[in-house]
């Protein structure tokens, strides 16, 4: 074999294999990094509110909306009064990170 052929086989093939694997490893992470959330990173998206899709049996579920002003505009009052005792007691939990 000539010198060029020798170089190509013994150096070129390993180099191209390494290059392909490196591309496969690093290129996907550049595509995902824009969306990947990290704590402390500012969150600049509009508020979003998700509910399950409407069920096949036609049961009506309130669909979420993407901006908060639309949610509050429908309400004419701030204070919700209830006649049922304890109906405004809500459970749950709080967490922070």
């Amino acid at each position: 074999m000539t010198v060029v052929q020798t170089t190509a086989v013994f150096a070129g093939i390993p180099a191209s294999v390494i290059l392909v694997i490196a591309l496969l490893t690093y290129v996907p992470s550049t595509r995902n990094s824009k969306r990947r959330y990290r704590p402390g990173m500012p969150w600049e998206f509009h508020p979003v509110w998700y509910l399950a899709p409407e069920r096949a049996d036609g049961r009506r579920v309130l669909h979420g909306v993407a901006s908060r002003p639309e949610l509050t505009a429908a309400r004419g009052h701030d204070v919700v009064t209830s006649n049922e005792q304890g109906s405004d007691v809500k459970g749950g939990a709080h967490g922070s990170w």
Partner: protein
Amino acid sequence: MAVGELSRSEVLEGPFTTGQLERISEALAAADAETGFVFSVYVGELVEPTRGDAERLHGELADPANSVLLAISPNQRVLEIVTGHQMSRRLPDQQCALVALSMTSSFTGGDLVGGIVTGVRMLADQSRR
């Protein structure tokens, strides 16, 4: 909102990719079907005090007594789980606290969607009828 209803620009401008939205949507639908309660997830700012604002949002749902809201504020790094008063028997506050802990662990690691999906699934498992 159901994944199929979002326009392309809403997905591009929104915080989650289509695949992530699908995961959230599936988790919510499964939780609703298994438990009969209404599950919802809110990601955005919460006016201080966050607990009061989360409860106010919860009250805006169609059926608050049978609904659970997971409110996540990434900027303030706060998570609120709000359950309606009909739910507290099957989903007591201690269980919610465990779910909150699991979710915040995911968020600390940078996995917002994984934390949300895990949280919804854990709450559904706890309150299965």
